[in-house]
């Protein structure tokens, strides 16, 4: 196993009033467990605010988890000291949604790409040219600045920067959400090519299930800080078991006018993680909810090898 996440939690305190007293908690990530094998892509999907980014950042220790363990090749990341963490960071990188905001506007592309290299002492210039080639850009662009590039090109630069330290694992947080479809396809293909070339593992975070299904080996569906279903991609799409997964799948418009209609449309809004409903957090919107659901918290359990679901109707 390359990465093992166990019972990861991240609670944010909510402070209110004059004295900033803690008046509650946002359970942004609430007991999340999964693992990722070498060369594998795990997709993480769910609606806005369900905790995808927080999960990714807690794994890389860009934020401190409240509790839980994260093992990378059997090293417990959450208990590492600063120095050891920096060494480990070479193996784990992140690509952000907004390629523009994440590139320093005052540095040239060459500067941006050699920044991580300096720390680890490499033959900088050749390596920069090499990296640019790898992501399909001309080495000439090294002298130019981020604002001179289109969104898709900037995302390529973001990917090149992540690759600079030769990582084994990359967290891609909505890497194509801000891009046009034709450009999105270029980046998705590039990520797949790089994976084949370097044996990379990805945690691919997105709210677009079609993209996630396309790129992932397995997919985890999150709702209000918890994973509600996890399965092989094909299995998840062909045999979804959690009522939320089913609704999510059926909400996505298929680009074919001949398959119009007959969708499960969820009523109500996505609740805030400040006020998580009791029992199964999905029960106020669940088309299959039973009176039990308001009291019992369903656990994420295997219903078949490799397919786990957190719904009391699917257990026993």
């Amino acid at each position, binding site marked *: 196993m390359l990465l093992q996440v166990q019972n990861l939690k991240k609670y944010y305190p909510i402070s209110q009033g004059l004295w900033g007293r803690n008046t509650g908690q946002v359970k942004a990530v609430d007991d999340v467990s999964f693992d990722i094998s070498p060369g594998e892509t795990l997709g993480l999907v769910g609606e806005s605010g369900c905790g995808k980014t927080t999960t990714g950042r807690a794994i890389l220790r860009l934020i401190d988890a409240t509790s839980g363990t994260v093992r990378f090749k059997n090293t417990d990341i959450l208990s590492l000291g600063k120095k050891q963490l920096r060494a480990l960071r070479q193996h784990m990188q992140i690509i952000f949604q907004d390629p523009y905001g994440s590139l320093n506007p005052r540095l040239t592309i060459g500067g941006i790409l050699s920044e991580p290299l300096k720390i680890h002492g490499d033959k900088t210039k050749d390596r920069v040219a090499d990296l640019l080639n790898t992501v399909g850009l001309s080495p000439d662009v090294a002298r130019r600045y981020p604002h001179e590039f289109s969104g898709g090109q900037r995302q390529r630069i973001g990917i090149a920067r992540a690759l600079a330290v030769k990582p084994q694992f990359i967290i891609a947080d909505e890497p194509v959400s801000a891009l046009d479809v034709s450009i999105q396809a270029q980046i998705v293909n590039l990520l797949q090519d790089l994976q084949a070339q370097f044996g990379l593992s990805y945690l691919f975070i997105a709210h677009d299930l*079609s993209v996630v*299904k396309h790129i992932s080996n397995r997919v985890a569906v999150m709702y209000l800080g918890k994973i509600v279903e996890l399965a092989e991609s094909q299995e998840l799409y062909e045999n979804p078991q959690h009522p939320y997964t089913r609704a999510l799948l059926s909400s996505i418009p298929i680009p074919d006018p001949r*398959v119009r209609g007959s969708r499960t449309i969820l009523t109500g809004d*996505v609740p805030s993680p400040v006020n998580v409903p009791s029992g199964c957090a999905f029960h106020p919107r669940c088309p299959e909810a039973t009176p039990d659901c308001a009291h019992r918290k369903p656990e994420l359990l295997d219903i078949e090898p490799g397919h786990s679901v957190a719904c009391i109707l699917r257990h026993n």
Partner: protein
Amino acid sequence: MPNSVLTVDNLQTHFHTDSGTARAVDGVSFTLNKGKTYGLVGESGCGKSVTSLSIMRLVPHPGRIEGGHIFFEDRDLVSLSDTEMRDIRGNDIAMIFQEPMTSLNPVYTCGFQIDEAVRRHQGLEKTEARKKTVEMLHLVGLPDPEQRANEYPHQLSGGQRQRVIIAMALSCNPKVLIADEPTTALDVTIQAQILDLLRDLQQQLGMAVLLITHDLGIIAEAADQVAVMYAGKIVETGPADAIFHNPRHPYTQGLLASVPRLDIANKRLRTIPGTVPEATRFPSGCRFADRCEKVDSICRETTPQLQTIDGDHQTACWMA
């Protein structure tokens, strides 16, 4: 056509900027029909929003409508005075924008803003206006409409705000509704609610809808007729079924092949190489030529015009 409500004819809207003239909308024509949804699809910057803003006569500086006509009930909107246009806007032709927050004023309650719209356009008294407001909020499925009317925009969720915007847009029974990326800012489960709502309301009220989106799934789901826009021009148009099952323009074909599909296992996505040209620097001839795999010498010399393929399916490509 007896059911035609609004006809855009050879619309040209340009922006005169320091780096040259951006021909954002360059000879666009289409017709909106009663009770039908016309879908306008294309990638970022192709001119979708400028088209809709032109119809509303809200093109921002330094943009200007440079040519063409927009016929609505025997009048050409392009030549109306600002006062005449103000009467039509929000009354006969209403628009909902991508970002719900920008079209609601944060300092007034949602109800007050709809009250104002119906008082201005329909001359209703205060209490009658509120009655109409509550009725509209009820129609768009906002829970507790009486109470919600007294809340401020920030007290509502994104989906609820979009419902309020729709209520406001429809409060004066417009004949034309322009929806510019009405669900782009929303989560998929909420998007499905809003698209469903728009379809229901269109059936009940019979207005013509111009639906603008970059999402081919939404177009397939909701549009009767479709126009694919690229670099300021419509490159292919026709009934939804023809566009999705018999696309003839290489750009339409490329777009469809580059979307990952839930219902089909596609191993590798097809891509369209390169990027969209900048509106100030469109190449001569076919604007897709630099990215097209079927490009021939004629393509760069002469701009292809829309030609009929079959019925009202048309495409602008020399090789189609």
